[in-house]
């Protein structure tokens, strides 16, 4: 799929803007603080309804205005699809083909993007929470089933944590209700774990191929999914996993009440990355960590194509300058004929221009754009 046209109204520093894009590579060039990232953010928000930069939607509304609006014409295999997102102080409204969608799950998945920003290098080095967030955003985009189970898991987790607190402080005493909440959490947890495991296994295969290529066949990348049940049990059926989690809750009930919170579950999961059987997080060089992050991100593109049947759109924010020539070349070569790409940069000097076929270049200067 690709984005044919983007129209912004009162979005960040763009009062009114219409841009038409190429199916190949689109480059936004400009000095700092001119509005390059704002454009990528708008494309990202059009796909996911939320920003990668802020959890406060109102920040995206142009100062002194009441609403921001993003309109996009997405070309898919099935034809042209108009998407529209309005962010106002009251909330968000999303339309697909001019029809308002009341459920987020009905909007997501119509337009898929993969964003790679400098902070994504943290997927490898950062905290487990960073990696969980990454996985949830990506898998949520590919699987409505995952998104729904995850959000129900989170809701039940909140309820259970509150109830455990009430039990801790003797504001409640009914253990039957705790068991109900434990069973419910175990059921949603088993579904979340099962999907995470399956998608991570698929992603690992793609990442391995890419990583081998970038490293000239020198390095083998492997993933390890860490969750509350044992590695070998991950291939078991969802029902078996559910029973195992239930047993963990039963066994640890006194401890969880004493702590007043849920100590076990996929909300504490992590993924570890290994290069040639060495944990990259702990022992990898900075270069290896970068290459790993790049392989994982690029694998996401293949995974999304495998899951949805269409390639997503790739957004690269200021990352080219962070990568050396080999990695840049790989990044651009691997996908430029299949994947529509938007990239931002302050200048073309440090970009391996030779490998880019005929890009469309936009010069950005304080919210004004010249093609």
């Amino acid at each position: 799929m690709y984005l044919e046209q983007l129209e912004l109204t009162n979005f960040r520093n763009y009062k009114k803007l219409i841009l038409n894009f190429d199916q190949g590579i689109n480059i936004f060039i400009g000095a700092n603080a001119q509005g390059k990232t704002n454009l990528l953010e708008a494309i990202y928000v059009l796909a996911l309804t939320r920003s990668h930069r802020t959890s406060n939607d109102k920040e995206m509304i142009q100062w002194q205005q009441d609403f921001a609006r993003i309109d996009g014409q997405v070309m898919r295999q099935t034809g042209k699809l108009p998407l529209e997102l309005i962010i106002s102080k009251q909330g968000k409204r999303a339309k697909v083909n001019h029809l308002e969608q009341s459920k987020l799950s009905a909007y997501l998945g119509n337009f898929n993007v993969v964003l790679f920003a400098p902070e994504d290098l943290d997927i490898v080095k950062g905290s487990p929470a960073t990696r969980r967030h990454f996985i949830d955003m990506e898998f949520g985009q590919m699987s409505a089933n995952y998104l729904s189970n995850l959000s129900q898991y989170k809701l039940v987790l909140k309820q259970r944590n509150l109830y455990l607190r009430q039990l801790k402080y003797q504001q409640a005493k009914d253990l039957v209700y705790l068991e109900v909440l434990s069973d419910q959490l175990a059921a949603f947890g088993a579904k979340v774990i099962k999907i995470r495991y399956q998608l991570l296994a698929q992603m690992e295969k793609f990442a391995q191929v890419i990583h081998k290529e970038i490293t000239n066949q020198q390095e083998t990348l492997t993933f390890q999914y860490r969750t509350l049940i044992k590695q070998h049990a991950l291939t078991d059926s969802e029902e078996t996993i559910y029973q195992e989690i239930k047993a963990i809750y039963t066994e640890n009930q006194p401890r969880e009440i004493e702590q007043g919170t849920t100590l076990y579950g996929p909300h504490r999961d992590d993924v570890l990355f290994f290069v040639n059987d060495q944990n990259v997080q702990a022992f990898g060089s900075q270069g290896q960590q970068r290459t790993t992050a790049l392989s994982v991100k690029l694998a996401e593109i293949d995974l999304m194509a495998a899951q949805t049947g269409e390639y997503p759109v790739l957004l690269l924010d200021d990352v080219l300058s962070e990568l050396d020539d080999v990695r840049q070349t790989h990044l651009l070569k691997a996908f430029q004929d299949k994947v529509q790409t938007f990239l931002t940069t302050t200048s073309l000097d440090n970009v391996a221009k030779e490998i880019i076929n005929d890009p469309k270049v936009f010069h950005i200067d304080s919210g004004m754009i010249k093609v």
Partner: protein
Amino acid sequence: MQYPEPIAKLIDSYMKLPGIGSKTATRLAFYTIDMQTDDVQAFAKSLIAAKKDLHYCSICGNITESDPCDICRDKSRDQSVVIVVEQPKDVMALEKMNDYHGLYHVLHGVLSPMEGTGPEDINIKSLIKRLQKTPIKEVIIATNATPEGEATAMYISRLIKPAGIKVTRLAHGLSVGSDIEYADEMTLLKAVEGRQEM
């Protein structure tokens, strides 16, 4: 400038209603001032009457003018089955179906620590008592298909199953007359999970 006291008070009253913020409340208040005096009087009367003349049925918890309610008093209804619902409006919806002739029990909410509702705060105790002294053989739980509705259903089922009473859950899936093509993915998944042998 401040609004004169009567209108300020009216705005304040409207704001006590769910889903009404100050903007809407102000619009409603000014609209009320422009209404015919008769209409305003009838409106005020209905508000007070609804509060004064309506009670909760001491058996099933539904809203009623007389206690026990019409349904609980109707001996021609099937006394062996009861449907448990979250709200009085759910009883209305099920009664419209005109096909169910058993009894009801209204919980007035679902279990939700986030909302501060525990087992003591909804009508569960009265359901257990009712089951002990009536010939009810089957309890159909019709709470909503939200995580809280499901948890409440599971909780009730655990309390009453040991007494040998049959407990069933309302099925959820595709709505009648709807095209599979247009159902959202989660509804479809639920419908597949709840499929029945033919």
